[in-house]
């Protein structure tokens, strides 16, 4: 093989993007036709639209490599991170070159694809994403000792980046339920041996807006871009299995 050869395939795509103008309060769907190489990501497509077709299209991102969770959008009805979706994979996965793109539904739209994540985060804040009160550390000036096996039980839940894909997919999550990622933030600290305030946490979890709102549909686990089995953690919480169990 000649190293200089690179496969040059271009796709002709149609992006049907839901738009909203806060100045006029108008909403509409705008079609953009564009040609794109196989390994451009959807964030690259949005930038391409800005630079070549329409600088007014508003979308959000930050790290653009799936570590921050800012660029979540709906593509053909599925919530996902735009920075992770490559053109050629999208064409295969959705079996089309036409993509309907809409903002995620967890908070009001500010403009086009940008939603008010501040409002969405309110629910995470209510779940208190920190240690409320630390248990006494008998080894002052040192770290708490936590066995790798104890950590293993909940470490996956600490990987959540609050992209709100799960909350978008969860039918229960909108008004009445804190949402899968918010309860996950609390479950982490219920499983964390350093948290003293377990009672307060249980109160949040079993409140009106707590985990009983979850119908165990597992949509959250299915869409999570970090492949966290969110529903598994919620199931543990429903059974009250927070602590390490013998023979577990």
């Amino acid at each position, binding site marked *: 093989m000649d190293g200089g050869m690179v496969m040059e395939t271009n796709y002709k795509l149609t992006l049907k993007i839901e738009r909203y*103008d806060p100045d006029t309060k108008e909403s509409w769907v705008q079609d953009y036709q564009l040609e794109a190489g196989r390994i451009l*990501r959807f964030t690259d497509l949005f930038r391409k639209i800005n630079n*070549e077709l329409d*600088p007014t299209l508003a979308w959000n991102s930050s790290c653009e490599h799936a570590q921050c969770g800012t660029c979540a959008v709906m593509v053909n009805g599925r919530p996902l991170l735009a920075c992770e979706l490559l053109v050629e994979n999208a064409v295969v996965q959705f079996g089309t070159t036409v993509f309907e793109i809409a903002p995620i539904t967890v908070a009001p739209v*500010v*403009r086009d694809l940008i939603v008010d994540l501040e409002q969405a985060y309110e629910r995470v804040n209510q779940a208190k994403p920190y240690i409320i009160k630390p248990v006494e550390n008998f080894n002052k000036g040192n*770290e708490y000792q936590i066995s790798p096996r104890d950590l293993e039980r909940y470490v996956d839940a600490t990987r959540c980046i609050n992209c709100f894909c799960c909350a978008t997919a969860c039918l229960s999550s909108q008004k009445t339920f804190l949402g899968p990622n918010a309860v996950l933030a609390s479950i982490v600290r219920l499983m964390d041996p350093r948290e003293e305030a377990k009672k307060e946490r249980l109160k949040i979890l079993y409140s009106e807006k707590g985990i009983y709102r979850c119908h165990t549909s597992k949509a959250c686990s299915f869409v999570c871009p970090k492949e966290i089995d969110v529903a598994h953690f919620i199931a543990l919480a429903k059974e009250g299995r927070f602590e390490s169990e013998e023979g577990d």
Partner: protein
Amino acid sequence: MSGIFSISSTIKCDVLIIGAGGAGLRCAAEILEKRPGTDIVAVTKVANPQKSHTQTAQGGMAAVDPKDPVDKPVYHMFDTWKGSDCSADQNVIKKIVESGWEQTVWMENHGMHLSRDENGRVSKRTFGGHTLGFGETSAFRCVFEADRTGKGIMDNVWGEALKGGTSFINQAIATELLFTGDRCTGAVIFREKEGEFVVVLAKATVLATGGDGQIFKVTTNCRQNTGDGLAIILQSGLPVMDPEAVQFHPTGIVGPGILASETLRSVGGILRNKGLEPFMERYAPKMKELAPRDLVARAIETEVREGRGILNPDHNIEHVWIDLRHLSDYIHEVQIPEVSSFFKKFINLDPKKDLCPVRPSNHYQMGGIPTNEFGEIQKNSESLISGLFAVGECASASFHGFNRLGTNSLLELVTMGKVTGEKVVNCLDAEQPGRPKNAGEKTFSLFSGFMKQRGRDNLGQIREEMRILMTEKVGVFRTEEGISQALETLKELKERADKAALSSNSLIMNQDLIQRWELNNLLVVSMVTAQGALNRRESRGGHFREDFPERKDQFNHHTLAYMTEFGDVKLGERPIDMSIYEEKGEHYEKFGMIERKY
């Protein structure tokens, strides 16, 4: 036209933190711990502090464990000094290195999920450039949270700041600092979602705006790292330090620029050019792929420059290959699963079967807003501005000099965040400042200037041209001629930008407006970076002058750059602190102007 804008409200608080990344919020947490109930306002450009760039750091954080039988702070100090190419400040090195472990314990005690060893203790691993016995063997000095240490820190300090009652202003930019005489009294903030300007008055203001990687075409930095903090400081007539000290990582994944870690080369990955030649043999016959970062980066750039690169049509970037196809399944699956998955996920290649495209990627800004060892901002080498602090990647104390060691940045964020927090607490008994009469004027005239233009130029295009220019002329290789051309072209780009119309004059969530403002900052930071690089007629750390390839004693100092009028850069100097050497304690001779040879 600026008459159409007004300040919609004035917020009074104790402390204003501009930039809610790891550094800014570690500082907030310290203030809240020392003085619970302090009224802190933290501003961030991103949708939530958790979306800040700190979130993406993977490798880990350096810290010498006092219980470690073989490691010692003096070894870490030496590695940092040598790594900096003898340009870091030794008082700062000492301070940061000595508090490394205490800070690790603080993080852990406040809930960070650091990875554990079999005994349930915080685990440690090795990292490039960190040694025992002054370069003898590798040190186990890097604490980590799996491959997401930055996220661990970010979540932790955000949580602590939230718990302590910090008010956050998210998706907002600080556009102007306010001063009353030599005292900083707050800033003007533009809230993007609301389209409103507000004044925040504070007894102390902390700048923690992060890096400026977006001045380059290929970068590992996030979209918001546009050097705003540096531009705001320059606009206020204050200097930035060592802007020419920029680090390039040899292997960024084309085209997202995502970091492909050194591990790929240490497990046996081979770099190849267009003709598939393993070219490192020509540049470093002994070390080959394992030569230091800057040498490998220069080798790759030479291949591309001499026509032996490959053009990626999708991203329009030339690159070389990293060949991992010959490595065993075990290596692929057990030793490099993470980076392998990056290639798969972001460019759809299978490193077991495919050659993978890489190009040096801008990674880190060593220079920044000059501070002393307490994060206080200096007006010049003798005096301070009261009530103003800087911390994190936007600041330069300087811990890294002209080249940063991996894992030293996170350490700097948390220690300097803490130290600065302690200093800020001392300002809290001051009187609440009043609002300066001219608050907002600079911002209004800038924004109205953007809005009244009618030119048909494409702002996105100008930004791209600037980024390519900086990569080509002020990147891995620099020459008198190239930098001079860059300086001229930057002026032209600025003139073009100044005439270009916005696509919309709305104030609400107008991305074009924000990017227009960022473009100004990028151009300003590029200008001082290029001028600093032109003036430094030597090579040192990340700054490599092809026409002056050696380090020179006459440049044993920091650069200070001032620019209030675009293009009119004034340069000054700040001495390098050599207190460890001068105190003549044990091993002091290791801290002289030693050679940076590995």
